[in-house]
């Protein structure tokens, strides 16, 4: 789509758009002024808060303090603070104010005490039991009740302090006791733990930054992309300059690319400005806090962790950000083209943010690490990669750089294509601000059935399948198996209601010719059916090899293996075949080589159709079972797509799908029933994996079959050009 564009034209439009953005006070404000002001303001607020926070003392009420032993003392001589020597840092003694209360005061009444704690009259209440001194002297134990409100932060903090003090005081009591019994002071602590933290200051800093920075960077590049996108598309429509540009000889793709580059620039500048401003502010803040903590109460300040990571790391992080910024820019661009006015465009921000938040939020969840699965998810993959890099774990981050960047670039490319499609559609560009009426829209859709589904409708089918899986899937499980164990019947019903129902319903409702759209006609040549039979047999050794490699790279959990094992072993062989081979063979083909394939083929070339449909096929397997299935499902999807395309029919794919899945069932059964004879074919019965000569044979056979596929007479639709939706 971007082949024959003229760089000169793109550059001219880009220059103009940049000029436009830079002369717009609002975007400049969002890009540069806002971040430059935001963080210093936050900094001022934080440091003010910290100062006032440090000054306020917590109140501890001690009931019946008279009963406390004089030695060792829990309180200071004036009885208005705790004893200084109990504090790790004696300066902190001023942070707890002690108030004495008589045994008959409201504080000793349980219900009044609760109320008063809630009212904030005190943060902690300590109840000294009568005769405490005596009991200690006699070598007995006594209870010291500490009462606080855990739903209140201040209460919690004060409680932790008081509890520390009390345990230190108890240690002293113990020491006195040991001394009087002539025992060594460490008699009661035969083993002392000594804790050492190997984390250096930089590493601790990195920990904090690695959580926060990806979140900030991604959200800021989204904001930086969003407002200019709205201004450059919906805004131009509103100001009437869009049509002026459209009647110029610039191509649509040139216009889209130039606008895209402008938005990307703005996005990166915004993210960069945020980074710079945040860096400067945090350095400033550390300086301030550092000064205070030197003079004030000791101990490392929590904000010392805010020293920035090294500039090299930040530069790397910024480079990683470019593809994701490109993705976000392209999404914003497509949405902005769709919007009729800037006002409508603003409405799209909330859904975009709502989608972006959970995906970026993963970095803030402790313990979430990069996995191959996360690396495929837009935003999440990049955020986790940034997190790992900023945490300084380069050796863990590097293997994931490509697995994260390649899908992200692919998503960016798809989003950009979507934007171009939007830009080429006159109904999108010249939409009038008419009131949208759902009923008449649905009626119109039903009245004006088309011969072929569009790519949008193919996507709709996929989304419907996901939604059906979410809602209907658990229903089927609860109806069929009361004990929650998956049986063959659950699989069959899931296939019918989740996988097959959406495409069939859509074909009946939206298409004039459901049979043709689901590709139910017989294949152009009967020999395609034989290919459908031969392909899975030839491919099986190769697929099992692939699966072995995948299993080694991304091992499946034992729980997962159990579920898959259970599927094939629990039911009778016939039911297993029906559930694992026949039902998916028909249902999944109806969806992926039927409606979705036809839809994708409208307006797409042949190979992208095959590739996109097989990736969707792979993704569906990830969602239905495990991400390890993605790889071989996608590979099979390519062959299934090729057969579907060349034969013009669903049936060779159905045959291939049934045979392929059926082989897995039969082999599992064979290995269980007669391991000895199965050993002739397989070198490893657990995989299973074939003996290597079979793998070599399979390679040759597959090559031959692919050649055969291209030699048979081909369906006219397989000629490689986009199919217009006007042709049937």
């Amino acid at each position: 789509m971007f082949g024959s564009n003229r760089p000169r034209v793109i550059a001219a439009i880009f220059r103009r758009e940049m000029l436009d953005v830079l002369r717009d006070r609002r975007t400049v404000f969002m890009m540069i002024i806002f971040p430059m002001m935001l963080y210093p303001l936050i900094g001022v607020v934080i440091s003010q808060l910290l100062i006032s926070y440090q000054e306020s003392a917590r109140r501890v009420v001690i009931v019946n303090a008279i009963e406390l032993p004089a030695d060792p003392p829990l309180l200071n001589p004036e009885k208005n603070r705790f004893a200084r020597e109990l504090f790790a840092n004696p300066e902190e003694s001023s942070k707890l104010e002690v108030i004495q209360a008589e045994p008959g005061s409201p504080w000793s009444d349980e219900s009044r005490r609760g109320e008063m704690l809630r009212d904030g009259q005190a943060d902690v209440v300590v109840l000294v039991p009568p005769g405490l001194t005596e009991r200690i002297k006699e070598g007995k134990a006594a209870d010291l009740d500490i009462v606080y409100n855990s739903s209140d932060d201040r209460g919690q903090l004060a409680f932790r302090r008081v509890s520390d003090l009390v345990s230190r005081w108890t240690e002293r009591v113990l020491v006195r006791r040991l001394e009087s019994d002539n025992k060594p002071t460490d008699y009661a602590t035969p083993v002392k733990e000594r804790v050492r933290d190997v984390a250096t200051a930089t590493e601790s800093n990195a920990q904090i930054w690695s959580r926060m920075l990806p979140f900030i960077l991604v959200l800021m590049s989204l904001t930086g992309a969003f407002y200019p996108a709205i201004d450059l598309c919906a805004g131009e429509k509103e100001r009437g300059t869009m049509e002026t540009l459209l009647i110029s000889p610039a191509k649509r793709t040139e216009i889209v690319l130039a606008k895209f580059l402008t938005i990307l620039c703005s996005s990166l500048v915004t993210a960069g400005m945020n980074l710079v401003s945040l860096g400067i502010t945090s350095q400033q803040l550390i300086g301030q806090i550092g000064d205070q903590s030197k003079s004030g109460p000791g101990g490392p300040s929590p904000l010392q962790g805010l020293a920035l990571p090294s500039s090299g790391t930040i530069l790397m992080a910024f480079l990683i950000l470019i593809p994701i910024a490109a993705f976000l820019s392209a999404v914003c661009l497509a949405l902005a083209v769709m919007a009729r006015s800037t006002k409508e465009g603003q409405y799209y921000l909330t859904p975009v943010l709502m989608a972006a938040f959970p995906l970026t939020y993963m970095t803030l969840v402790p313990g979430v690490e990069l996995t191959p699965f996360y690396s495929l998810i837009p935003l999440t993959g990049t955020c986790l990669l940034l997190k790992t890099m900023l945490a300084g774990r380069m050796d863990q981050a590097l293997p994931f750089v490509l697995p994260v960047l390649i899908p992200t670039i692919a998503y960016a490319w798809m989003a950009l294509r979507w934007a171009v499609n939007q830009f080429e559609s006159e109904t999108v560009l010249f939409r009038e601000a008419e009131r949208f009426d759902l009923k008449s829209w649905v009626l119109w859709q039903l009245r004006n059935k088309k011969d072929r589904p569009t790519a949008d409708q193919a996507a709709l089918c996929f989304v419907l399948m996901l939604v059906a899986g979410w809602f209907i899937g658990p229903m089927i499980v609860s109806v069929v198996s009361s004990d929650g164990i998956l049986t063959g019947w659950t699989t069959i019903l899931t296939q019918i209601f989740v996988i097959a129902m959406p495409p069939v319903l859509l074909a009946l409702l939206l298409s004039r010719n459901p049979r043709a759209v689901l590709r139910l006609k017989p294949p152009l040549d009967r020999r395609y059916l034989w290919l459908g039979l031969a392909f899975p047999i030839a491919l099986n050794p190769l697929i099992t090899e692939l699966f072995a490699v995948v299993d080694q790279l991304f091992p499946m959990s034992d729980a997962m293996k159990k579920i898959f094992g259970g599927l094939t072993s629990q039911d009778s062989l016939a039911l297993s075949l029906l559930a694992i081979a026949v039902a998916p063979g028909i249902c999944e083909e109806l969806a992926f080589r039927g409606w979705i394939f036809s839809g994708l083929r409208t307006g797409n070339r042949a190979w992208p159709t095959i590739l996109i449909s097989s990736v969707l096929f792979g993704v569906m397997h990830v969602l239905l079972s495990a991400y390890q299935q993605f790889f071989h499902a996608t590979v099979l999807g390519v062959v299934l797509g090729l057969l579907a395309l060349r034969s013009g029919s669903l049936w060779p794919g159905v045959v291939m799908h049934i045979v392929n899945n059926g082989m897995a069932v039969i082999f599992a059964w064979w290995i269980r029933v007669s391991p000895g004879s199965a050993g002739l074919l397989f070198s490893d019965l657990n995989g299973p994996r074939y003996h290597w000569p079979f793998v070599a044979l399979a390679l040759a056979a597959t090559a031959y079959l692919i050649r055969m596929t291209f030699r048979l007479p081909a369906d006219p639709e397989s000629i490689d050009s986009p199919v217009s939706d006007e042709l049937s």
Partner: protein
Amino acid sequence: MIEVIDLCKVFEDYKRGPIHAVRDVSLECRPGEIFGLLGPNGAGKTTTLRILSTVLSPSSGTARIAGFDVRRHPQKVREKIGFMSNATAIYDRLTAWETVQFFGQINGLDKATLKTRMNDIFEWLQMNDFRDMLGAKLSTGMKQKVSIARTIVHDPQVLIFDEPTSGLDVLVARVLLQKILELKNQGKTIILSTHSMHEVNRLCQRVSIIHRGQQQAQGTIAELLEEHGQPDLEDLFFHLVDRADAAAAMERTAS
């Protein structure tokens, strides 16, 4: 040179069903001629001209500009035309000079040619007083001049004006019409839509009267007056509009 043959445009409307904005319009416009599209609001003039400028594609029929089909070679067509309408505004945040320069650049003019061309145009339209003023600050008349400059900067053979004088005061409108006439005398092929009989009388050699998306009559003004037995253009116009409305009403009652 503009050729339009049986042009149709149908919009899908969820509520009202298909709407035939343009039905079977055919016309031809030659170099050195101003062709007028005369019709009331909503007649289909803008849709027709938008199809000629390739921002809309025809539902059926064809249109060729300088030999290029609007559907098959939209980009070539856009290189050959200058298009100006109420919907083609100028940039608020660019100066008059920058706006014209930008359109010169994306039309592929090289620096030197563009400079001389722009100097000529700014001189011709007397725009040098406000060449460095931002679009947002310009008066309506100045904006209209910038629009013309933008339309003709690449010296297109074919010019399309969609209601160019609507919303302008008489002084500005007069200057504009004068400039359009001068362009015609330079040998440009010009098509112009309007609902003003006065403009048609003053500018156009031939005219097509359209109403309800359909062409009601086409020819030189003298021919049309004679053919329909009407004393002047205004009477002719109302005669044709009434006739079309009556026919539409008949059709509705019949169905």
